């Protein structure tokens, strides 16, 4: 350990790295660079591109639809981080106690994750349909006809309806958290029981702190994926009505369809910047807690 690498080792490392680096450059560095360069150009995607400086950025930042798309993405991400993941953690904690039928429920919760997003979106379109949809039918059956609505076609309900259609698909994060819970030694719970801790106290003081890292990872993943969500919005509302459900990726797509490649790429650059800010911000937010934990461990001699 710690010995210097021989020339032979270095060549070996370089050879092993070449395929990954080549693919990374070809499919990430080059496309992102291309997007950044063309974001300063007026380009229809087919003809010659013309340099226009920051005009594309000033145009999109002055576009109400773009601003609404940013707001919607922020709401989507926040609901992912602070509703979706906590629900997944809650269900995982319940299922980890292995109540009767827990395997069945684990499968049921995970099931939507093996169905394509588009198929799910179409199913929810049918549920939300105001003429034959299940939601309005149920409301009608229980005497709440006044609440029946064209859920995806009204200004007030379209975006919440979109959020609700995926917020309960907690299976993916539930499995990650469940896996983390399974690594907690039973000794901790037995010791807590001897000290008189009941079920809820064990969850709060043992399980939660020990799965905090997994929850924070899930929150980061969920919030970042919220920034790039596209499929279900495209299928269910296409950004409507009146751009109420517009998302950044859909905005980029629409600009591409309208042969405004410069504007589309400027919007994509803003999306990349927001994504970087979100990741850095979340890491900072979470790292504060990790440092505190680290200090506590050092003070008790837990870490050397």
């Amino acid at each position: 350990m710690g010995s210097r690498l021989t020339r032979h080792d270095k060549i070996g490392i370089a050879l092993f790295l070449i395929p990954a680096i080549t693919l990374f450059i070809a499919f990430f560095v080059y496309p992102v660079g291309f997007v950044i360069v063309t974001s300063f150009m007026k380009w229809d995607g087919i003809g010659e591109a013309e340099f226009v400086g920051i005009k594309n950025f000033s145009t999109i930042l002055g576009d109400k639809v773009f601003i609404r798309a940013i707001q919607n993405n922020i709401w989507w991400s926040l609901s992912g981080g602070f509703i979706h993941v906590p629900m997944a953690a809650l269900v995982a904690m319940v299922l980890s106690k292995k109540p009767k039928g827990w395997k069945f429920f684990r499968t049921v919760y995970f099931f939507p994750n093996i169905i394509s997003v588009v198929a799910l979106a179409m199913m929810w379109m049918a549920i939300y349909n105001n003429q034959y949809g299940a939601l309005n039918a149920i409301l009608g059956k229980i005497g709440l006809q006044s609440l029946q609505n064209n859920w995806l076609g009204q200004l007030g309900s379209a975006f919440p309806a979109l959020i609700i259609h995926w917020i309960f698909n907690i299976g993916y994060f539930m499995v990650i958290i469940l896996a983390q819970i399974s690594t907690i030694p039973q000794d901790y719970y037995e010791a807590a029981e001897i000290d008189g801790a009941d079920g809820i106290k064990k969850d709060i003081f043992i399980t939660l702190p020990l799965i905090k890292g997994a929850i924070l990872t899930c929150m980061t993943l969920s919030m970042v994926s919220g920034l790039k969500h596209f499929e279900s919005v495209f299928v269910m509302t296409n950004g409507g009505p009146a751009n109420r459900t517009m998302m950044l990726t859909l905005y980029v797509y629409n600009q591409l369809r309208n042969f405004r490649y410069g504007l589309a790429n400027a919007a994509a650059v803003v999306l990349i910047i927001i994504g970087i800010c979100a990741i850095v911000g979340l890491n900072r937010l979470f790292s504060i807690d990790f440092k505190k934990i680290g200090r506590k461990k050092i003070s008790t001699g837990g870490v050397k």
Partner: protein
Amino acid sequence: MKKKLVKMMAITMLAVFTLVGCAGNNATKTDSSATPAKTDTAKKEDAPKVDAAKEYVINFPSIWVGKDSKANMMNTLIEEFNQANAGKIKIVVEEIADYDAYTDKMRTNIAAGTVPDIFTFKHGAQADLYFKSGKLMDLTPYMNEGWKDQFLGDAINAVTFDSKVMAVPYEFGVTPVMYNKALFEKAGVMEFPKNYDEFFAACDKLKAAGITPMSQMTGANAWTSMLWYSQLVHSIGGPDVYKNGFDDPAFVEAARVMQKMFKYTTDDAVGATAAVAGGHFLTGETAMLMNGPWFIGRIKTEGANNMYESVEAAPAPYYAGGKGQPGGYIGFIQADIGVAKQDDPGKEEAVIKFLKYITEPENVKRVSLDSGALFVVKFDLGNEVERLQGQMNAQLNAAPYAIPHFEASVKPGVASEFPQALSGMILGELTPEQFVEQLKAADQM
């Protein structure tokens, strides 16, 4: 220019469907003088580079699949062509049933330089970009061999860019009102309204009879509603309305009428797609739908309770006091066929042979009769003309003018903003003036 072009085609259509019908077999014989076999033979003599032992595989991503009314006969034609040219030419169809997905794929292919051998695209702003891309085959030499004589009026001029014929004009579209006469009569409306006062009076009667008067939609490209708006815009502002831009008051007034129309449609119109709007008409829930002849096939096969017998086509009502004229029609080239530039002269020959085959008058007639669609290729329908198709032809030929619809007359960005602005207006977020302002803003981006 477009208006004249379309009108010229309309007049030529009239001539074709009447005079050519009388000439019958003679005209057909003249057209078929440029049959694929003869042209191909002549070409082969001049082009020794063609490898007779080689099978040329031609890639054809097609939108004429699935539920498209032309799918059935187009599939038959391709099968027949492949059989007749077995071992020499093989047309491989890539089925893409979703129009938006198809358009996106073709556009991306052209931008990336991987143009399919044959593909279709909408005529309009998009077509101009494709023409100037430099990636399409120049068809001028082939057209000049007599092929262009098979097409109506100025259709070839419409696909000519920089003095070169850059595509094959193919399907022609008109979009009258299709109405369910049985439902109209049930409501006590005995004939289709001539103007909008009569129209809304009829809508009131239909509504009173428990019938939803019309299908409208704001989902996807708001197709049906966009067509109604197109009719209103030219009826109020006249056939030259698009020359004045969005400052023409016709756009605001047309929006005002659209607001009123949405009071006579289904509850799910905001957000509804073309499938939903068409479905309401096919199930007999709504009494009117604005759409083109390609929908006739679906009325025949999917219409509830043999509704085909009850459906009639009519020109949209005219706006009293407007600059348009009664009977003014929406007419436009619906689809062009694009061809990729070919390096292999043998493959180029094969592609041209197939294109000549599907534009052969007899084959176009088969597709037209089977689907109800109209084409810019001259052919003799004779007495076999489908009833609704015949009505549309007669109305088009009697029209004082025919102009393309809104989507084909504005920039793609404006067309894509239309559904959003329309839904905003219908839901009360925008006034008609703000609706037009939103379109104008999209125009200036």
